[in-house]
């Protein structure tokens, strides 16, 4: 370390040479990694199954509603942005502002849920089930597995919102909100990979 000898203030030294900092709790990161691994293996299985029946997969894929998917992508991205703003607000000590951003994030998440429910209703009506075809199996499994993550993420966001209302977080206490935010970004990230792979790419 070539920290200048005249720097007495440790925080000033940090500012010049910041040590890499993992936002949020290691426990949530291990969980996130496990989840990403599960999704990853699932997507590898999807690629494997698709390579055996490309034409069949493509034909079935055409039946999916890409517009709804695109709107959902925008909703999740926006929601993730709001969560970033909420985290920044907490870091600035503005809990009230943070809870406002979180309400926005939750609103976008709920929008995703509503659109997804309509999509599922339409698909179930058309006889799509886990057993109707291999593509349908992957489509439903992957999106439903993700859908449940959105629901869990919303529960977490609600808990964060409650926390900001009760002023539990602050510049010195970022662990909770950073952990929850990291989880929500994971949910967003998975959708960003899942949507093109399952809905769009041929």
């Amino acid at each position: 370390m070539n920290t200048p000898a005249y720097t007495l203030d440790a925080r000033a030294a940090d500012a010049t040479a910041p040590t890499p900092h993992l936002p949020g709790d290691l426990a949530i990161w291990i969980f996130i990694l496990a989840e990403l691994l599960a999704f990853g293996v699932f997507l590898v299985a999807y690629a494997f199954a698709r390579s055996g029946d490309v034409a069949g997969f493509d034909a079935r894929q055409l039946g999916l509603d890409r517009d709804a998917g695109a709107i959902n992508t925008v909703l999740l991205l926006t929601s993730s942005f709001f969560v970033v703003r909420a985290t920044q607000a907490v870091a600035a000590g503005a809990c009230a502002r943070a809870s406002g951003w979180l309400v926005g994030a939750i609103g976008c998440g709920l929008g995703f849920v509503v659109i997804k429910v309509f999509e599922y209703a339409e698909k179930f009506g058309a006889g799509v089930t886990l057993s109707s075809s291999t593509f349908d199996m992957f489509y439903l499994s992957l999106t439903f597995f993700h859908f449940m993550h959105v629901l869990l993420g919303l529960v977490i966001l609600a808990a964060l919102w409650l926390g900001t209302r009760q002023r539990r977080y602050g510049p010195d206490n970022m662990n909770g909100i950073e952990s929850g935010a990291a989880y929500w970004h994971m949910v967003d990230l998975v959708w960003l990979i899942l949507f093109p792979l399952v809905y769009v790419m041929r």
Partner: protein
Amino acid sequence: MSGTFTKAMARNVFYGGTVFFFLLFIALTFDTMQGLPKSDNRAAITPAVAAGKHVWETRNCLGCHTLLGEGAYYAPELGNVYKRRGPEFIKAWIQSMPSNTPGRRQMPQFNLTDKELDDLVEFLKYTSEINTQNWPPNIEG
């Protein structure tokens, strides 16, 4: 790299993760229960099949044989024995046990009545018609 690792967060992740995956398992179970009538051959379940399953269980057949691959691995798979051997062979086989060939694996004599034999065969017939995704790979089980 600096980071935080708190017991409270580890605990929350444990409870959250467990509840989450258990709910997912319940959802899949629910779907399975909806789909089973198509694959589990329930239409073929008659009082004779039920009685046959009772015979199967009370003689602890699973202590030597497998049924759809589950049980002990000492004696042949019986999930498809109806297709492999047919009803008459099965009954004659059970009645002729034990073989008493020195050194060979022995199957006990269960002294089943004619009705019990018929019921057991009915149960094995029903089992052989369950949709097992083409398992076993061939008729030898």
